């Protein structure tokens, strides 16, 4: 890839050889702590095991003290943080498992495999709990969409997510795609998976019962992904460094599909006592965590582990992150049946060890006898207390200090004409709306999600593109509603507020369907925690997320922390990615964002507040980020979500849409475009038309209803302490918003501005810009006889710079 050469690599430390522990990413301080745990020097194998288990990725050594403060208790929770995925009851003997996880650095190094194995890893977290994966959502963040390298990354990541999810037969039903310059060298690939299980299927990642067999099944073990957790995920990096290539795993979705079927059959038939997938840290992580959770130990027979290639050193086998592998414990009498299941599904299986009582992870070469003891002549090559690797791994209490300078981030790929396209500057607000809808961050994502199988398993009620995903639960009247949201632009200005806004928007997007959020899972993407400024951002985000969840009464059911997201000294915009799953008890009550009926009333709930910083409008206008972002009233947010669920439950609401990116005008435009129905509205403007139309202050909804229901909606809103205003009616093939009140033309003219007194535009025009915006930005717009693709030549990428035309 010639593009790689355009990225100047970061030098890999001093020339003289580092001591082994540092090469493995273990600090001198940590080495001393390891000596303390063992009472001696670790050997090479042991040091390698510690290096992955004490990595940020596996041990959460920096974030653990913060995560402890999160609210993790909720009704019906069967599993939560610390387990592979959160599990919450949904009634009728059923439960839902969900979790979000990052695969950022692998995707930056090798976008296809990085993203693909990101999907594979999170799916294993789900079926390891006994749940059948039913949906995937992918939250993706990249740099400048007009940059050739970004286009390669977008193409590779999207192909990778699809290549894995499509093959394994789990629909990808939603997600996000955001462009921001801060992700230029360090894209974010966060993947959320959802699974459905009968409560009786729930199984934990434990290795109980001394004497039980420890079996390894799935793919064989190779050299791929060695040091993935320690070297790649837990350090800042130069993505062009070829030496990091082998640290990226290679995915085999076909093997994963077989693994799902075999694992769920083993669990369903009660053939295994505990089961854990092999992800980061490989067999070292799976064995030590399983033993630690059960208060047991594991004796491993190194020679029994099936290899993909000859000549692998013991330490390589122990920390290999080869994909599609599972570690399970079973009673000796069940082993033949376990074997039969795996062989029927064509999956290699090996008896690799025994559960012991001594609490140690012990590894021998030379085999284990029928008595479960090492053969005479076998040599023990490693022995470490399981808890020293897992629950008692080192914890770092990092220094946190607020940053001295603020970041200003105008979004990339903005059409030049939009610079003048602001009401304050005398241009038609419709032109601003069109520019916003065509911008890389607000335009339609269909190019992405049409590469994902969204309907396999026959549960998809709401396809991607129009708000939260909706999945029916077969055999019930229930539906699950899922979304991911993360606000990096406000987080860059105020990480506490940004995290609150992320939780508020994600849960709001679930509530406006009528569903009740069951819990949130979170993927915290931040910079190097050893830098006090970056750690402060993480600290503030966890505080904000916790406060928001407490105010909304929603538990945090699990999550993942991705630190060291920096490239050549620059940290990404702090990105708290929030995944939510909600439960709708009666799917017949489902409400969606698009308008439904000509003549319906359009009601605005909540009122706008000043503060344009971090908004799409601010980015479009190139406004300084020194302006304050809008504030969030968590109590009002809670009231808003309770109100909308109540209104929907009473059958008053025909459609419900929240006001977020691009503000009220974009929210209404989406209701129109997605339904093909226009609207004729009047909007009272007290202050600035720009704030009213394009401000992103939270806590607002656009509802439509039968005209006779509008008064009831307004009354109910007031009962919840919310303002409500009927703006007009649905209909026609244009969106027309008349601006009224002293804030509109009058006051604006006093400010020397010539604002059009109405936003008036044909749906067809909105639809066209919105449909083509992303393709334009990525240079994909198909020219005749030209094969589209982000990797296409500059000739086509030139299109992106002509977007004003």
């Amino acid at each position, binding site marked *: 890839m010639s593009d790689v050469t355009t990225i100047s690599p970061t030098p890999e430390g001093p020339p003289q050889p580092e001591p082994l522990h540092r090469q493995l990413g273990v600090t001198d301080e940590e080495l001393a702590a390891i000596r303390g745990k063992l009472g001696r020097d670790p050997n090479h194998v042991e040091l390698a095991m510690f290096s992955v288990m004490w990595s940020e990725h596996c041990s959460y050594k920096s974030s653990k003290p913060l995560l402890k403060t999160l609210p993790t208790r909720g009704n019906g929770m069967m599993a939560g943080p610390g387990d592979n995925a959160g599990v919450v009851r949904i009634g009728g003997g059923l439960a839902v498992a969900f979790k979000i996880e990052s695969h950022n650095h692998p995707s930056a190094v090798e976008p296809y495999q990085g993203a693909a194995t990101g999907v594979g890893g999170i799916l294993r977290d789900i079926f390891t709990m006994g749940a059948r994966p039913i949906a995937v959502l992918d939250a993706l963040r990249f740099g400048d969409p007009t940059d050739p390298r970004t286009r390669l990354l977008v193409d590779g990541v999207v192909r990778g997510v699809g290549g894995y999810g499509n093959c394994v*037969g789990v629909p990808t039903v939603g997600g996000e795609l955001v462009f921001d310059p801060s992700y230029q060298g360090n894209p974010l690939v966060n993947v959320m998976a959802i699974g459905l299980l009968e409560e009786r299927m729930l199984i934990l990642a434990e290795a109980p019962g001394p004497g039980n067999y420890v079996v390894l099944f799935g793919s064989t073990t190779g050299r791929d992904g060695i040091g993935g957790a320690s070297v790649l995920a837990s350090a800042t990096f130069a993505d062009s460094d070829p030496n990091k290539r082998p640290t990226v795993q290679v995915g085999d979705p*076909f093997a994963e*599909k077989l693994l799902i079927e075999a694992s769920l059959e083993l669990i369903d038939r009660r053939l295994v006592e505990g089961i854990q997938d092999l992800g980061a840290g490989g067999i070292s992580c799976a064995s030590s965590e399983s033993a630690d959770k059960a208060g047991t130990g594991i004796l491993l027979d190194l020679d029994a582990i099936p290899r993909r290639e000859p000549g692998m050193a013991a330490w390589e086998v122990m920390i290999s992150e080869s994909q599609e592998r599972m570690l399970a414990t079973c009673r000796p009498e069940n082993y033949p049946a376990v074997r039969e299941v795996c062989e029927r*599904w064509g999956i290699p299986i090996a008896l690799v060890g025994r559960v012991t009582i001594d609490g140690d992870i012990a590894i021998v070469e030379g085999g284990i006898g029928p008595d479960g003891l090492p053969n005479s002549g076998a040599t023990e090559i490693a022995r470490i207390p399981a808890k020293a690797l897992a629950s008692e791994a080192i914890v770092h209490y990092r220094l946190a200090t607020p940053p001295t300078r603020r970041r200003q981030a105008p979004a990339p790929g903005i059409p030049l004409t939009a610079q003048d396209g602001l009401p304050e500057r005398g241009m038609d607000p419709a032109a601003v709306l069109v520019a916003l809808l065509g911008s890389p961050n607000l335009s339609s994502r269909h190019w992405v999600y049409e590469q994902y*199988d969204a309907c*396999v398993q*026959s549960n998809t009620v709401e396809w991607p593109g129009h708000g939260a995903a909706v999945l029916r639960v077969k055999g019930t009247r229930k539906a699950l509603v899922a979304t991911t949201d993360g606000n990096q632009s406000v987080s860059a200005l105020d990480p506490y507020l940004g995290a609150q806004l992320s939780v508020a928007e994600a849960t709001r997007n679930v509530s406006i369907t009528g569903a009740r959020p069951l819990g949130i899972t979170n993927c915290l993407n931040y910079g190097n925690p050893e830098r006090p400024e970056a750690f402060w951002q993480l600290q503030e985000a966890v505080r904000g997320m916790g406060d928001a969840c407490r105010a909304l009464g929603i538990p945090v059911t699990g999550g993942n922390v991705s630190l060291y997201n920096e490239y050549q000294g620059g940290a990404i915009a702090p990105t708290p990615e929030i995944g939510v799953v909600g439960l709708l008890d009666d*799917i017949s009550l489902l409400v969606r964002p698009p308008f439904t009926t000509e003549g319906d009333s359009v009601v605005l709930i909540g009122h706008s507040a000043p503060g344009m910083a971090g908004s799409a409008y601010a980015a479009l206008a190139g406004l300084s980020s020194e302006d304050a972002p809008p504030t969030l009233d968590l109590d009002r947010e809670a009231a808003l979500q309770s109100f909308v669920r109540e209104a929907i439950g009473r059958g008053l609401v025909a459609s419900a849409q929240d006001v977020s990116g691009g503000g009220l005008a974009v929210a209404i435009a989406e209701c129109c475009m997605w339904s093909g129905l226009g609207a004729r509205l009047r909007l009272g403007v007290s202050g600035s038309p720009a704030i009213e139309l394009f401000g992103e202050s939270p806590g607002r909804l656009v509802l439509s209803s039968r005209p006779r229901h509008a008064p009831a909606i307004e009354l109910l809103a007031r009962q919840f302490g919310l303002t409500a205003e009927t703006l007009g009616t649905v209909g026609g093939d244009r969106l027309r918003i008349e601006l009224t009140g002293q804030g509109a033309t009058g006051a604006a003219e006093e400010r020397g501005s010539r604002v059009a007194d109405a936003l008036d535009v044909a749906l067809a025009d909105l639809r066209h810009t919105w449909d083509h915006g992303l393709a334009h930005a990525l240079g994909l717009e198909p020219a005749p006889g030209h094969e589209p693709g982000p990797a296409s030549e500059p000739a086509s990428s030139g299109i992106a710079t002509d977007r004003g035309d």
Partner: protein
Amino acid sequence: MRIGVVTFPGANSDVDALNAVAVAGVDAVTLWHESTDLQGVSAVILPGGFAYGDYIRAGVIARFSPVMRGVSGFAAAGGPVLGICNGFQVLAEAGLVPGALLRNRSLRFACRLVAIKPERLDSPFTRAASGQPIHIPIAHGEGCYYADEATLDELERAGQVLFRYVREDGTPALDPDEPANPNGSLRAIAGVCNAAGNVAGLMPHPERMAESILGSDDGMQLIRSVVESAREWEAAGRPAATAPAKAEAR
């Protein structure tokens, strides 16, 4: 009467086919890839997915599986066989239906609703169809139907073209580059049958749009067609298939 759905390792839309057949009120049984025994079913559906991973070429390995020997015998005896998506690819690789499925012209996997229209309503796979455009999803990376010109002419002459991708106005999307033709299929062909008329392949997924809760039950028209054909074939004592009457001149 029972309808069999083949489960290859890597099949993933078998659950959709089993679900749709059950919704149609018929017993559905899974036919395991390692067995040639079709358990006396009255029709066979080869479902979508990635049989054996499809790493080499879609369907190229599945055609050699034991169950396909059973399916070939079943087809030769006149039993109704419908291959959907990957199932179509397997049937084409096995030579049980004419033509081949190439990579989509976009060289990308494509999943979205498309409109197809049955070319004839007197086939075992369209008998319960309304004749209006049917809106069902595609989800494939290799769905571009290809055959040489002579074969295409012969297929049309013999009435073996069962479905075409159509525009909103119901006319066939003959231009391989127009949006209504989602994969560049020649002559907008979405589904074909063998000369005897009892084996059909179809790229879009009727079984995934067979319940109104999922947005539409358009696909049920085709599932019901298979069910009726299976019943009739069973009732008639499992007769050998006869070539379909020529399609009406278009």
